[in-house]
Every structure is written in structure tokens, then in C-alpha cells.
């Protein structure tokens, strides 16, 4: 082993040929051909009270959409999907179907080979985006106007459903682009050909949705202003800060948040220009860990190691995601936690780990046994938390639970007139599909609320709404 001082970080761009970049970041699962789709659709048993429907957070009538593929009614199939999940095209790509609908598929139980529901969903929905056929119309103008904070899946799902119900929506987005994590957070090879933006173009085509970019709503005053100006407010914020490792030297060069790098990668015009280390260490066990590991490996990193403090069973990334990483050449080491970042000239060069084991009550404990892994880049991927700070002082008005916004079954916050959904609310699973469902449920709740308001006004009553 080389002396520590002799280590120099090797971070370079242009590690691969242009062809290799194109190949490594091409569509992970290209769309099924009509022939493949027809054969796969024929495998669906058209179950009664189908378990796949119950396993879908948005409750898509999966047997019906698949049956429509079988009969050649592809437009009807797309409608069946999008009426429950307007982000059907993205979810077809990014949903962990192996732990949702496909796990529940009766063919999983029968033969351990589920119907490829995700692939069929993409087959049904992509053409609608491409040919621009409008399947949903704006409802008759209600005269109501809803403010939405965040143009991610939760916010835009809410806005689209509100438009269907006849209400106007204005969306306040901190970034330059709409889409939230769909745009900034998903591995590039899952969402080629600018699908995230194309899908949102389709969603916005319904009309009545206005997006204001670079407008963060980051204070109680701002939120309160929205409450006064609009008939209702929906908060669809994402998660803020990536969790820190809690080690000395986290500000060293080469130590960074996985989500930040993924964001840069997604926005990069030229992948070859992205500098990447020769040796990468990723700390964490979720989807973000797999995404950063797989993507840096595909950018040409030679040794990419995910280190997770527990075992494969506890890992947030599904077996399918782990397989994807491992077949791509990523090494996963379980049962170790980082204890020290080793630097040379203010740049990280290695990480020291301590082996762990399961302790009592599900805790983990160090064994005292240590090892080092060389690293030119170290990525933190141990989760993100909701920055209650993004609500600023208003957090004492909007109740939190578990560090995120507390909502009821209708996605109402503790403050009348304000709803919330997506990653910022308590109890979610940090999945696009769950965010979409939150937005949809909230839109219907808002719609009922706005109608009640009208009825009260008709009766000459005062609107009972202390917060507004």
C-alpha cells in the first residue's frame, strides 16, 4: 500500500470516449415494442380486486390498462393510467415497481415472474406525450385561485387536478426549472430524452396553471401573504439538506452531497465535462446511494464502493437497484460505518471505516475492527431531511411531526386553508408516485373546501378561517 502522503486525488473529466458516455447513459429500459407489449399484456390475469391496484400508491386500475393494451386500445390505456397518476410516464420509469405493483402481482406468487407492469405503463403513456393528444380538459372556471409552493410532482399533480376541477393554480418554484426531483434527482439513464420536461409540458397543456420560477417561499411572511392572496395554498416542498456524516473534515475538497452531484449531472450539457474521481466511496444505502454510485461508475470511475452500515435486508435500495449497481461494476460493502475522513492537502484521499454489527433493539454497534478505502471523492447519501427552516418562523404555526409537515388523510395541515404533500410531509415514502397521490388527494380536498366556502358565502355567513 502506498504511503498516505503519496496519494493524490485523481479527479478528471473526459474519462471515456463520446460513444461510451452515450452508451452508459442511454435508456436503461427502452420501450417495449408492440410485439413485446402484446405478449406481456397477455400474461395479465385481469384479477378481481387486483393486488397490484392496492399496491399502487395512486391506485391505478392496472388490469384494465393492461387489458386495453391487449385490445389495441392504447389511448384508452393511457387514459386509465393518467386519470389516477398524471405523472404516469415518469412513474413508469422511476417507480420501484419491484416492491410495489409487481411485487403484488399474482404471477409473483405463482411463478416468481410478475407481469412487467412498469414497462407496459411506459408503452401506454409515452405515445400520448409524443402525439400531444389531450386526454383531460380543464373544468368550468370556478373563479378560485390556489397557490402552490414547489413545482415538483406533488405540486404539479395538485395543480393539474385543480385545473380539471376548474380552479386556477399559480406555482412558486425556487429553481429555474419545473419538475423537482424528476428534473434534478433521478439517475439520468432512467429518464433520457428530456422526458421529465416533456411530461410536464403535457401536464401544463391543460391550461390554468402558471409557474413562477426563482420564487422561493421561504418565510412565514411569504406563506402568510399567499394565504391572504389566494383561496387556498398547497405546499409541495422537497427535502432540503442532505444529512451530514458527523465526522471531522466534511468540508474537505472531494466530500460532497450525492444529491448535489446528481443534480449537476442531470443538468450537464456535456457529461464528458463532468469531473469524476478514479476511486469513489458512497456512504448510504438508499436509492440516492445507488444512483450516485452507478452514475459515477458510468462516468468512468474505476472503483466505486457503496458502504452501508447495515445488511442488504435493511437497505433502502431494492434488490433490483442493487443488482443494477453491482452488474454495473459497483461494489457494495455492508456492515461498516465511516469513522474518519483522511485528507491530503485539504482534499479527501481515503475513508476509514469501522465494521458494525446489529446490536440490541435494532441498533448497530461498532466492532472496533477498522479498514480504509481510498477515495478521490466521497459522497454523502445517508438521507435528506426536510428543512423546517424553509417554512421559517411559520413552522410554529404549521405543526410538524417527525421533522416534516403533519397532515391528515386529506393532506390538510394544521392550518386551515393550507395543504401539503410529497416529500415534505410526515409519513411519506419519498417516492414520486406518493407525491403525485398527495397532490391529487389534496386537490380534491381543496375543491371540497372551496365549494363549502361558496355555500357559506351564499348563506351570508362569514368564512370561518382564522388563519387567512
Amino acid at each position: 500500500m502506498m504511503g498516505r502522503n503519496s496519494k493524490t486525488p485523481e479527479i478528471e473529466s473526459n474519462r471515456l470516449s463520446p460513444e461510451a458516455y452515450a452508451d452508459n447513459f442511454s435508456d436503461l429500459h427502452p420501450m417495449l415494442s408492440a410485439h413485446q407489449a402484446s405478449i406481456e399484456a397477455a400474461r395479465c390475469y385481469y384479477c378481481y380486486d387486483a393486488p397490484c391496484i392496492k399496491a399502487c400508491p395512486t391506485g391505478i386500475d392496472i388490469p384494465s390498462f393492461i387489458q386495453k393494451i391487449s385490445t389495441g386500445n392504447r389511448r384508452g390505456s393511457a387514459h386509465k393510467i393518467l386519470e389516477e397518476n398524471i405523472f404516469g410516464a415518469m412513474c413508469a420509469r422511476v417507480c420501484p415497481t419491484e416492491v410495489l405493483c409487481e411485487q403484488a402481482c399474482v404471477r409473483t406468487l405463482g411463478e416468481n415472474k410478475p407481469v412487467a407492469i412498469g414497462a407496459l405503463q411506459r408503452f401506454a403513456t409515452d405515445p400520448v406525450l409524443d402525439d400531444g393528444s389531450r386526454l383531460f380538459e380543464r373544468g368550468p372556471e370556478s373563479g378560485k385561485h390556489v397557490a402552490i409552493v414547489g413545482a415538483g410532482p406533488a405540486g404539479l399533480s395538485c395543480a393539474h387536478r385543480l385545473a380539471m376541477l376548474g380552479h386556477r393554480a399559480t406555482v412558486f418554484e425556487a429553481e429555474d426549472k419545473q419538475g423537482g426531483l424528476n428534473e434534478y434527482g433521478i439517475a439520468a439513464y432512467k429518464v433520457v430524452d428530456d422526458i421529465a420536461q416533456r411530461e410536464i409540458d403535457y401536464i401544463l397543456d391543460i391550461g390554468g396553471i402558471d409557474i413562477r420560477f426563482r420564487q422561493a417561499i421561504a418565510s412565514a411572511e411569504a406563506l402568510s401573504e399567499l394565504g391572504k392572496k389566494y383561496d387556498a395554498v398547497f405546499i409541495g416542498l422537497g427535502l432540503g439538506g442532505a444529512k451530514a456524516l458527523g465526522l471531522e473534515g466534511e468540508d474537505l475538497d472531494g466530500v460532497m452531497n450525492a444529491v448535489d452531484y446528481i443534480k449537476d449531472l442531470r443538468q450537464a450539457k456535456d457529461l464528458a465535462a463532468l469531473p469524476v474521481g478514479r476511486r469513489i466511496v458512497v456512504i448510504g444505502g438508499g436509492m440516492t446511494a445507488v444512483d450516485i454510485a452507478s452514475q459515477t461508475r458510468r462516468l468512468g470511475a474505476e472503483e466505486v464502493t457503496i458502504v452501508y452500515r447495515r445488511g442488504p435486508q435493511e437497505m433502502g435500495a431494492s434488490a433490483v437497484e442493487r443488482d443494477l449497481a453491482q452488474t454495473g461494476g459497483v461494489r457494495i460493502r455492508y456492515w461498516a460505518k465511516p469513522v474518519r475522513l483522511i485528507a491530503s492537502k485539504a482534499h479527501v484521499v481515503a475513508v476509514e471505516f469501522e465494521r458494525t454489527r446489529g446490536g440490541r433493539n435494532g441498533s448497530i454497534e461498532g466492532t472496533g475492527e477498522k479498514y480504509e478505502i481510498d477515495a478521490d471523492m466521497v459522497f454523502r447519501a445517508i438521507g435528506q431531511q426536510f428543512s423546517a427552516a424553509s417554512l421559517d418562523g411559520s413552522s410554529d404555526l404549521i405543526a410538524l411531526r417527525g421533522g416534516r409537515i403533519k397532515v391528515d388523510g386529506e393532506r390538510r395541515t394544521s392550518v386551515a386553508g393550507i395543504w401539503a404533500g410529497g416529500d415534505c410531509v410526515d409519513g411519506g415514502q419519498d417516492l414520486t408516485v406518493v407525491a403525485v397521490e398527495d397532490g391529487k388527494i389534496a386537490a380534491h380536498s381543496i375543491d371540497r373546501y372551496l365549494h363549502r366556502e361558496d355555500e357559506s358565502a351564499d348563506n351570508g355567513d362569514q368564512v370561518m378561517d382564522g388563519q387567512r
Partner: protein
Amino acid sequence: MMADLSCEFAGIRSPNPFWLASAPPTDKAYTVVRAFEAGWGGAVWKTLGEDPPIVNVNGPRYGAMLGRDRELIGFNNIELISDRPLEVNLEEITAVKKDWPDRPIVVSVMVPCEESAWQRILPKIEAAGADGVELNLGCPHGMSERDMGAAIGQVPEYVEMVTRFAKAHTRLPVIVKLTPNITNILYPAEAARRGGADAVSLINTISSLIGVDLDSMSPIPAIDGKASHGGYCGPAVKPIALTMVADIARSSETAGLPISGMGGITTWRDAAEFMTLGAGNVQVCTAAMVYGFKIVEDMIDGLQNWMDEKGYTSIDQFVGAAVPNVIDWKDLNLNYVEKAVIDQDLCIKCGRCYIACEDAAHQAISVRGDGEPIYEVVDEECVGCNLCANVCPVEHCITMVPLRDGTDPRTGDPISGEYMNWSMHPKNPFREV
């Protein structure tokens, strides 16, 4: 020792009971030789007619009914009889027979309904070395417009007459091929017997339009935007063929008349079923057209293994074995009670049995359980109809189990074990006391 598959049908011997039916696969020496090389026991040469040869359409002549995974379920054709000169066919028959003396070649024939026509053609066929003739009185399309094929087969008097013509002008065994496009298969079968037929073969194809092109508004297969009905065959027609074969086998009027069974036979099981219902041999066309001649290998091997397993050493030991069990509805035992039973270990929770029973049968399946549903048969409601077992995607998951004693929970009636048919039933106002 392996079971002996050799077979004698209407005096014609063949090494196994699997013959190719008169159809495109038996149109010429080239294909018949390939079939014999593959192991087919015999062939019925594609129907010969009088010269000049007929002219076929020059566009699509077939159409298919496909399952959801594009498995061919039913098949339709508008092809006519052989479009090659009679002499060419006869020469090839002679040549093939010379090389394959142990494989029977029966020649299908179709000429107008005049004795002279039969008198002209049959001696030529006999001279070519054929082992028998099959009268094509069944083709439902094209030729029937020219008063041949089904136009004859649909009129029992004509069947009898033409059979007589044939018997009068050949010493070869005469097999009369029947059309299913009639109300009762016994009428033409009896007519064939009266005319002196040595055997009947059935079924020919069923008159059909396979579908409509919703863009062009033409049925398919379309010839220049128009279509004519064709003849339907393939796996979908097997049940129709089975009931007709059984009808002939169990009728006292036709008892003992050799039957060559065909209609949708694709596997050795299909063949065995036809044979247990009285077919002395079987003929196959569609399966060979879809999969090629090689499929006969499993037909032979599969039938042999099944016979060995069952202890049959020759095919005559099971031909007709199921015929005594084909009876009229009025003779069915109404005291016999079955209930569906769902094997919970095999159940994959698709709920198809539940919704089928709930929407379309007797509301006799309950669902319970939080999360994973548990589907169970409610014996108090189950009439034993078998719909659940038929829609279940898992083999053996739902079985029908007879009640042997106690009472039927649905009716409260005791399981007597005694036979009682409708004519004896207390609820029958006309019962025979």
C-alpha cells in the same frame, strides 16, 4: 415393450394412426415425402378434381383467430381443391407409393354429381396405386358454389347417391368425408352407410368469416377489398368435431362404421380423445400447417407412453372406450353432487373464481382476510358448476370433489348414492313412475 401403434382402418394398414388430412400439406410429392420422413402414418392426398385444374385466388387465402399471445386458435381458408393437373398428381402418387409402400395414401376426390364423372376418375386413382379414396363431400367454400363439396354433403340423398357411384367404380375402400355444416351429423352418416361407404371421416371445415378489417370494412382474408366465406378449422373446432364423432359412434344406425376423426387435433391427447370417442384413426392438418411435420414425433411418442402407462398394448383396446359414457342429458344422474374446493396452498389470490361466481354463477365463493384475501367455496351455495375451476389460472388449484355421503348443504337432501335421472325425478311432472 412399447405399445403397438399400428392400425388398420377400413382395411387400410398404417404404422400409426396419425394421417395427414387432405389439405395443402398433402398437395404434392415433395411435402408428402417430407411428412413420411417425419413419421406420419399416412396421408390423404389433397383433393383431386377433373381437368382443367381449378384456379385459386392470387391473394390471401387464409385467416387466423389468434389468442392474446398470438397462439393460433382457429384457422380459416378459401383455398380450393388441387390446382395442379390430374396427371401430375397421379404420377407423383405412384412415385411416392413406390418408395413408401408401408404408408397409405388415400386420395381425396371431388367431381360433379354425375356417375360418369366418378366413373372416369376413380379407376385412374386406383391405377396410380392409391390405398383408398376419400369423397370430399364437405368443403364449404368455393367448390360448393359449383354444386360440389358441401353442396352434396348437406343433402343426405346426394351423399348416398355419390357414395354408390364411388363404390360402383372402384374396389378401393371408400371413405366419405362429412361436412359439419348440417343440423344433425347422423343424417349424412347414415346416408353414407346406406350408399355402401367403408368409412366416414369428419369433420370437414365449418363455414366461416374469420373477421372484419375495421379500416377497409372488408371481411378477411380480403381479395381486392372483398371477401368470401371460408372453411374454419384448428383447435377451436375440436369440441364440435368430438360431439359429431361421438354421435356417429354411439348411434345404432351407424354403429360399427369406421370413423376417421379430425378437427383441431394438435397433440397426442387430442388424438386419444377422438379415438376414445370411436375414431379408428385421426387426421391432422392445421397443426402441421402451423408447426410443420415434426409435431408428429410427440404425437407418436406421447400416445405410446400414455398407452404404456395405462397398460394398452394396441390402439383397438381404447378406441371407443369413452363411447358408452356419452349419453343423453335425460340419463344423467341428478343425485350426483360435486362441490368446488380451492387449494389454499396453490391459490395465487387473483380472485377470478370469486368474480366469475359472483357475477355470473351462484355467489358461492366468499372472500375474507385483511390484506391478502382468502377465497373459499360456500358449500351452501355451490351448485358444482365448475365455472371457478375453468377460470382459475393455476392447474389443480380448484378441483371438483364429489360428495359421497351426508347431505348436500345447499339442498339439504341426503346423498343417497342411488341413480336418479330426470325421468325419475320427483320434481318432473311427467316422471315415469
